[in-house]
């Protein structure tokens, strides 16, 4: 039994999209913390 091509596609594109969302989320969180004076 082998992993399907569809599963590998989901894995690869899913992980790349996840990385994009992570970078955007970190940037947005920092902006919010800076505006609130809560960065550190």
């Amino acid at each position, binding site marked *: 039994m*082998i992993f399907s091509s569809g599963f590998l596609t989901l894995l690869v594109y899913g992980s790349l999209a996840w990385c994009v969302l*992570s970078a955007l989320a970190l940037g947005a*969180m920092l902006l919010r913390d800076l505006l609130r004076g809560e960065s*550190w």
Partner: protein
Amino acid sequence: MTEDAVLLAPITGWVLLAIFSLLWVGLGIYWGQRNKSFEDHALAGRNVGLALGSATAAATWITSNTTMLAPQFALELGIWGMLAYSMAAFGLILFAPMAKRIRLLMPHGYTSGDFFRLRYGRTAWGIFLVFTLFYSLTWLVSMAMAGGILLEALAGIDYVWGMTVILAVCVIYTMRGGLAAVIGTDFIQSLIILVGIVVVGFAVLQNVSVDQIHANLTANKPELVDVLFPAALMAIFNNLLFGLGEVFHNNVWWSRAFAFREGVGSKAFLIGGLVWFPIPVAAGFIALASGALNVAVPSPDMVGPLVIANVLGEAGAIAIFIIVFCSLASSIDSLLAATSDLITEDVYRRLFHPSAAPETLKKMAQWITLALGVGTWAVCVPRIGTLASVLFFAGPLVGAMIWPIVTGLYWRRANSVGAIGGMLLGGGIGLVSYFQIGWYVASTIGTAVSMVWVLGAAWLSKDRYDWNLLKEAS
């Protein structure tokens, strides 16, 4: 790899090295101006917010092993190999509730050593210090060695010069800026790594489709897409436990639990783990493309850069150079800071100078950072070991510390007999299995042995620990 086979011109490598070195040192000096005491230096004033906290958790866990070894895992263990590497994210995710409890139980704590000393006594504390210092110094040496090896392979920069520059830069900004500099630079480094991996990943996919990769693997290396690949399945559990043991015990993570503002720790570690989770797959799938792209791979631990440079040329080589440099710096700085704080707090202060002033402790932490850097440099110059072997050797030791920590934080019946026996038996038997069976089971066996001993000792014990003893005034 000879200079003729490098992926980037040495002059380009030196220019990139100079730009990022100046940036990190400049920021470290700037952020260091806010540090007045040991608490500021070691714990960034215990007031780090969610964004910086989440990014530093993720960035510190993104080592050069994540960006270089994840492709090697994919090349050797296939799809399960990438997923197995991703399991290390659960170290951060499961540490999230523990970070909250650590902050609650130890509002004045500095290090993971403080926990062992107060919870289990001096014998367990001593064993813990030996284990954790061995692991931290091994990790530090392996990161610095990896830095020299990778810069030489990527840009033809002499091993000793590359290793020296990376180490020196990290030592300077960690000395001057303490944990604040480490956390601040971690944020920038995490964004650079995430963006770099995404850009490189999509660029590779412009040259080869996932369907082509899958068809090539099915025809030539079917075990890499096998759902029941035995070694890869065992690697999942090993990596999961290795990740748990590393994060649960190491002062790199405990210092952050103490440094994050109240209410931030659990969220920051959860988000950090989620940010980290896809990176081994995003960085690792590139190795699976090597066959479909006809890229020769003479050295498995260089498969990622080789594929990227072959497909994307100089731009790809520059991207991987920056990703690797940021991955290395984000881990080396954290290890330097956390290990120097551990030695300052647990050895210098607790063993020799209990009444040392905060300013003295800060200066001592800075000198110890420098000494760690010089010592690491001296060990690295002869160029021994490889990326993977040194790290996984310590796996059973960190696995054996999981249960003493978890039960010690949540179960009043957990006791020193269990902690001492769990660490010694789990670490010892785990090491035997490392040599007799293989690295992929060593952490699992070490953790299982430790678990049985720790739970058995707690079950039979009549002790009931008083949590207030952990609230030691600083």
